[in-house]
């Protein structure tokens, strides 16, 4: 009787704890925002700046998140090495950019600059796709029917392998991306401060996401992808080559990540072998926030996360007098990950997998 009572008490304290957790988070957000806003340290222009910055970084997260979400949808595994695929794309783009800069093409005029970016993205996509297909073949395919943690551990291994392969190939130093002069210039608009690079990032991300959405929803291959993520066995019975569909999914996700790598590098102007790690985890967060397995969800989640980490530190924390709140940007992102996992594991738009599959 006593033991039962202890168990019940533990149960009650657990749910009490979870409620307290919720309330604390809500209090921090609400009170922090109220304090920051009433102090009025920041002008409307600053908030717009932050929001635009969040839009750019968020669309990059969204692009990476697509790869996580598609692979999860089809295999039910977290492709931990996806961040490194993104980093590989950034490196591919770097070498393309160096070549173009040496040829004098990069900064010839705005048109060649734009063309250069297209070439860089194409190279990055090729590099990322090749790597992703190799990783799938070597590290994931043999483990397809193993318990959930086995492919995850293998993916973590692949992630470290890729990071330190790049470190070996290219050294531990930081590579400065060649400057594309046009992109650094401001867009001639009077009411907001905006660089061309932000426009480029957001527009190309949107174009690629739209393309991907059409690809998944409208093409035959896309239909096959959706069929395989519904039910592999039935899809195989219908004559779909499941292995090929899975490889295609990895390739498409990797292409998006490769493109994101170039866009990221154009924004932040420097890369090194560890560049992919944190954006990778954050993009996974974005995929979870949007509802993993859900393609529009990944896009929404990416934007949401981008805004949260761009505006969040200033809005929620500055009011409390937290020194240099921007250091805590990643803390907000990871806290969000935990919050979503705990309180709404199906994400904003809902997980596509149903109960009997999960």
């Amino acid at each position, binding site marked *: 009787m006593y033991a039962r009572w202890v*168990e019940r008490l*533990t*149960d009650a304290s*657990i749910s009490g*704890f*979870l409620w307290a*957790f919720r309330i604390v988070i809500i209090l921090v957000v609400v009170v922090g925002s109220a304090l920051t806003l009433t102090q009025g340290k920041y002008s409307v222009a600053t908030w717009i700046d932050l929001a635009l910055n969040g839009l750019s970084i968020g669309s990059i997260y969204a692009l990476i998140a697509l790869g996580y979400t598609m692979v999860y949808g089809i295999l039910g*595994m*977290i492709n931990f090495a996806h961040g490194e695929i993104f980093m590989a794309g950034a490196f591919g783009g770097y*070498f393309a950019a*160096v070549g173009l800069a040496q040829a004098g093409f990069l900064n010839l005029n705005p048109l060649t600059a734009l063309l250069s970016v297209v070439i860089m993205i194409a190279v990055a996509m090729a590099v990322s796709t090749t790597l992703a297909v190799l990783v799938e073949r*070597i*590290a994931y395919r*043999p*483990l397809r*029917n*193993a*318990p*959930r*943690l*086995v*492919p*995850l*551990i*293998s993916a*973590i*291994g*692949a*992630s*470290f*392998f*890729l*990071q*330190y*392969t790049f*470190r*070996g*190939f*290219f*050294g531990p130093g930081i590579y400065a991306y060649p400057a594309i002069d046009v992109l650094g210039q401001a867009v001639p608009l009077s009411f907001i401060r905006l660089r061309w690079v932000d426009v480029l990032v957001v527009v190309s991300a949107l174009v690629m996401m739209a393309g991907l959405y059409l690809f998944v929803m409208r093409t035959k291959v896309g239909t096959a992808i959706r069929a395989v993520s519904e039910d592999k066995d039935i899809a195989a019975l219908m004559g779909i080559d499941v292995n090929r569909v899975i490889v295609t999914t990895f390739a498409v996700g990797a292409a998006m990540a490769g493109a994101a790598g170039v866009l990221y590098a154009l924004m932040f102007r420097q890369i090194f072998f560890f560049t992919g790690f*944190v954006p990778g*985890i954050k993009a*996974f*967060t974005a995929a*979870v926030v949007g509802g993993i397995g859900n393609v529009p969800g990944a896009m929404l989640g990416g934007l949401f996360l981008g805004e949260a980490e761009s505006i969040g530190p200033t809005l929620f924390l500055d009011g409390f007098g*937290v*020194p*240099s709140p921007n*250091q*805590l940007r*990643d*803390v907000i992102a*990871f*806290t969000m*990950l*935990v919050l979503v*996992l*705990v309180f709404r*594991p199906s994400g904003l738009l809902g997980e596509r997998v149903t109960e009997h599959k*999960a």
Partner: protein
Amino acid sequence: MTDARSAVMVATTTRHPWGGVVRVGLLGGVVAVYLCLVGIVPTFAERPLISGAISLGHTAIALAAVFSGYLAARRAPAGNVQAVTAGALAGAIAGSALALLVVVGEVVDVRAVMLQASPVLYDLLTFGMGLAGFWIPAVAGAVLGGAAAAVSTLPSSARLPLLSGLVWVVVLGLFAGLLRTPMLTGALSGVARFMFASDGLTPIGAVVTFVVAIGATVLQRRVLIRQRIAKMPAARRRALLAPALVAGLLVVLVLPLSLGGFFSQVVALAALYVLMGFGLNITLGLAGLLDLGFVAFFAVGAYTVGLLTSPGEFGIAQWPFWAAIPFAALIAMAFGAFLGLPILGIRGDYLAIATLGFGEIIRILAGSDLLKQWLGGPRGILNIPKPIDVPPGSLLAGPNQIYYIALACAALVAFVAWRLRGSRLGRAWIAIREDEDVAQALGIDLVQTKLLAYMLGAAFAGLGGGIFSALVGSIVSSSIQLFVSINVVAIIIVGGMGSIPGVVVGAVFLIGVPELFRELSSYRFLFYGIALIAMMRYRPEGLLPSRIVRRELHVPDEVASPGAPANGSVAG
């Protein structure tokens, strides 16, 4: 899995026997070029095995040729001549890839892209001849591949002694420097000078080692010690085992005293990781919870000890170490409860990422301006005293005492884990690891049971962190890194989940060896990556799995078991 693989192999062999050989050769070539470009060959070349002749770098690249030769011999059509030809062919193809690398590299400078494609590398591959010697790797590859194939056709009574001779040359070559220094002062100084140069074996020493190792193996196989021991009655076997165990224990206890200096720092660190490995083994090995945020609790423990003991700027109590260390474990445990409660209801793979997030959150907080006024940020908490106050130069000075403390704590953790393994909680953990839905339907409260495993793991991480801060004498935010978590996870996965000797072996190889050989340490995470993938593919139960898992995976499958999950359920 293996059967299916060999079946596929047979199928390809019967289709194009020589096609398979060429593929193996190409694969060897890719591996060899990779080893060069990733920098392993040039970096390892700085560590000679046989002084003035062969370096570890050469060995690494030779292994690529040897393996392709060996695999090619197995794919070749029957017959020894064919096998050797196949081996030589595969080795030659692998070597030609390197020759191509030399030619391309000498003609076009690719260093703008590949940092390691330098003249140093080409000199290494051509033994200093540059472009003119581009044929050398191809010929060497053919010779090595052929030799490997030839060895593989020998009967095992000849093959095994040869292999053991080679392995001993490599091992003694690696440890030559370490062995030589203490030997020089003793009665063995003549032997030391004869066998060891300052950097590797002397050529004569190598020959002696090779011959002696072959002799010993042949002798051992003659006497058939293993079979004899196996035939002995259990009581006598135990009687033989006990002195061996005592001897082993003695070696472990006097190890740091006899080697001193840098070496004792390394063994102390390895012992610390053994302790943390045992801790995570409860969480991951028994309960199957992949905790990638181990460093969070390590940090809590380290900062707790730092704050409570340091007489410096940020210290708050100036307690002795012994008063502070229980708090390190307890506070880490409380953090484990605090962080674990919300997330332990979620699925295993999500849990792993969420814990990774915790690790990062704590890392960022430790270095942030927000906590700088209490934790010192990047400058950290300094002057953390050693647990036992002894004059410098005494046996227990410096890292040695930490080594013993870590060992004692590791033994304690192992004891706790062993006791729990046999209790209803241990069974509940394993049940959750095996099938959490069924475990719950049997009346096990998942969150409470998992929480306990998570909290115990956290407590031992805190203990490890506390001892770490005493070992280093300070705790700074840059010590709180993701790689602490990854190290511990890798130790357990490579060593074998749920296995105590596995954790020890894992810690020695993954922590001790890279610390001893700096050249290895820059490629440590590359090896982790390869090791994790390879372990998951070929031995998901680890190198030294716990008894029960091994029994499960290696008893011949005479009965079809429809209800049992497939191989690899260990990690599930």
